[in-house]
């Protein structure tokens, strides 16, 4: 909460204070006040629940950060002069309830001056539990309608079986698909979490990203464990 207040204050003050030096000081102030910023807060109880909580928190933070290094083609991200409030970024999580808590704690954050709306989508299993008569086709139809508004779609491990269909639904749509399902990237997903040496990393399928008209920052590409590129179609480290 405090962090967000400060961030708002920072933004509002940045327009008011014309003096560069003061602005620099404010930057410094911000820097220090944000000492208890995103990552540390997320990592705060990493010591207690290393395997679970830390991993989910980290994933949530990664999801946010991915959105910062990716540009969507709708291009409405920048606030125009119409005076209307900017459209929110929609972050969809499909069938992974463990991310609910860490993501909700980030709900008030903005990305590129746009608010973030987190949308949790029930997995087919959950839907079936509620409604036995639900079919996969209906579910997928519903899902197709739902994910149109999503900018990022995290596919939980629960949907591993319907991965191909889900990838197909999001194919050539400006939806950044992320998952920790193995071979997700090679199957056509954009970003796949991998764990290397106990450290969480990610692969990027640049081809599918380009097919979705998503522009991924070169910096993000630099960080990637593997990048699937068009020419070679082979992953490069």
């Amino acid at each position, binding site marked *: 909460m405090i962090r967000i207040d400060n*961030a708002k204050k*920072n*933004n509002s003050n940045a327009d008011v204070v014309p003096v560069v*030096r003061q602005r*620099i*000081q404010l*930057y*410094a102030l*911000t*820097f*220090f006040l*944000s*000492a*208890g*910023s*995103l*990552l*540390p807060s997320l*990592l705060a109880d990493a010591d207690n629940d290393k395997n679970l909580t830390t991993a989910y928190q980290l994933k949530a933070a*990664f999801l946010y*950060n991915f959105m*910062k*290094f990716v540009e969507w083609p709708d291009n409405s991200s920048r606030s125009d002069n119409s005076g209307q409030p900017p459209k929110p970024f929609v972050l969809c999580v499909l069938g992974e309830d463990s991310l609910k808590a860490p993501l909700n704690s980030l709900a008030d954050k903005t*990305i*590129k*001056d746009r608010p973030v709306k987190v949308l949790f989508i029930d997995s087919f299993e959950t839907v079936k539990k509620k409604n036995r008569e639900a079919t996969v086709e209906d579910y997928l139809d519903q899902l197709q309608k739902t994910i149109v508004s999503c900018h990022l779609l995290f596919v939980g491990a629960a949907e591993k079986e319907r991965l191909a269909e889900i990838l197909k639904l999001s194919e050539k749509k400006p939806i950044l698909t992320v998952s920790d399902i193995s071979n997700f990237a090679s199957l056509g997903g954009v970003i796949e979490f991998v764990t290397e040496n106990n450290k969480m990393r990610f692969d990027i399928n640049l081809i599918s990203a380009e097919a979705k008209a998503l522009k991924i*920052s070169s*910096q*993000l590409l*630099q*960080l990637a464990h593997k990048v699937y590129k068009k020419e070679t179609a082979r992953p490069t480290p």
Partner: protein
Amino acid sequence: MKWINNLTIRRKLLAVLMSICLVVLLLSGGAMIAWNQYAFRQNMIKDIVMQTQIAADNCKAAVAFEDTQIAAGLLESFQARPSVLYVVIQTPARPEFARYVRKNTRPAIHDHSAVEGWSFVGDELVVRKNIVLDGEVIGRLMLCSDLQPLKANLRRNIMIVIGVIGFGLVIGYVLSSWLQRLISQPILALTNIARDVTYRKDYSVRAVKYYNDEVGVLIDTFNQMLGQIQKEMTDRMQAEAELRKHRDHLEEMINDRTRELKLSNQRLKMSVERANLMAKQATQANRAKSEFLANMSHEIRTPMNAILGFGELLREEPLSDDQANYVETILSSGRNLLQIINDILDFSKIEAGKLSTEQIDFSLIPMLEELESLFRPMCSQKNLDFDVIYGSELPDMMRTDPVRLRQCLVNLVNNAIKFTEQGHVYLHVTLETINQTSYVRFDVEDTGIGIPKDKQLLVFEAFTQADGSHTRKYGGTGLGLTITRQLVELLGGRISLYSEPGRGTVFTIQLPLGTEAQRHTAPSPHGSLDTVPSEGNQALIPLKGNILVAEDARANQTLIRIMLQKMGLEVTIVEDGQKAVEEMGHGRYDLILMDMQMPVMNGYDATRQIKAMGIQTPVIALTAHAMKGDEEKCRQAGCDGYLTKPIDRAKLESVLRTYLCPVSSPGTT
């Protein structure tokens, strides 16, 4: 800086130009270096800040995803920049998220918490940049660079500037050496010409004018000056030539003059010698003259003594009228002769400055009465009226030399009588006061022939009469008035005359009264031995006594013997002083009459010896020396009285009476 004043103009110009050159080069070089260094520094800062910014941007993702390896890898790219000492990425969680350090260095990491931006810390430039992701500060990148490029740039610039200055100085030297000729060349040429003129005295050379600048004007002026000097030198040479000619001539003239001068000098020397000789001769002659006059005085008076003495004796004998007349003629002629001789003696004494006067108080009236009785018979003989007219306030006494006053008055009255044929001769005596001083005024008035105006001043000159013919007609030496004038002046008075030819003359003597007017004061008997005493008691008491007379002249012996015997005195006569002394040794005498000039022993020595023997007998000196000092000389020798020759019988009797009748004569010791 004094040494610079003595440099040649060439060097001065060179120095000026070169120093300007050097200053300009140094200033421009310094400015260039400063500006370049500043620009370089700004560029370097800008560059490094930009590098930092780029690095900060580049590592956004790495920081965001906490990928330290990638971040370190990114920082490795600073290897291409050797001036970068280290780069550090800090995040809130990790103070050293990633870092790059230049090989082989262990730099001290600066404080990362300082203000964002750049700053110089010692020799290092530290740039701090926040890593901002989507408006959120997620970390900070700090870059530290040394200033090697700046220093290297400075060194390079200095080297370039030194090179440029060196090259510029060389070019400047070449240019100034060439340019200074524009100024120094004409001046040096002018200097050389001036030196030539000074050493060779050649005023015909002219300096060459190069340009129309100030030096050109100087050269023109110099040339004009040379022209003037040349002209003046020519004039001077001519003048000198003339001068030399004159000088040669002058030398000749000087030689001539010197020769003449020598000659005249010799002449002068001879003249001086001659003059000295003559002066010596003149002195000798003067002494001879004085001796001659003294001798004359004595030698003439001695016979005159006899003539007048015997004349007077003869007159008292019973004679016939004719005989008596002859005797009177002899006496008056003798007296005249004596007067003339006295005049001549007086004159010579006055001329020699030897006449001295005395100042004594005496009674004026008796003297005037005596004069009246003296002249009245003479005037009546010529049928002239003579009278002494007394002024109302005439004092009894006056102080002057009575002998000389009487002489003056006698001279004037004699003169008046001499030149007056008919009418009168009056003597007016009055007292007058001029300027609070009392004068006694004597006017001798006659009705004689008078003196023409043009001769009036001459009559007081020696040997002069108003008309040369008068000497023949009236006789006289012409000395009377001259002596009178000189005597009056000696007595402190003055003499003047007023005359109208044919009507008469008035001679006036004014003498200072010299004393307060007093009445009833008797004259001192000692003070005026020559004064004629009153004749009242002359024959009353017959004289008695034994008189010793020392006299060498036989005529005088006889005369004195007769005179004394007639007075009833006993007389013993000796021929010289020696005998007088011997006689006094064994005879009793009441009085001695001592002639002063005698053979064997003179009167002075004799008197001295007699007095030395303790004899109190009065000694009366008899002398023909009518000079003033004589009386004093006699008194010093011991004489009690003094009589002059020729012996006046009345005087002799008066003196004798004084000493032989002590009862009747007061004041005698």
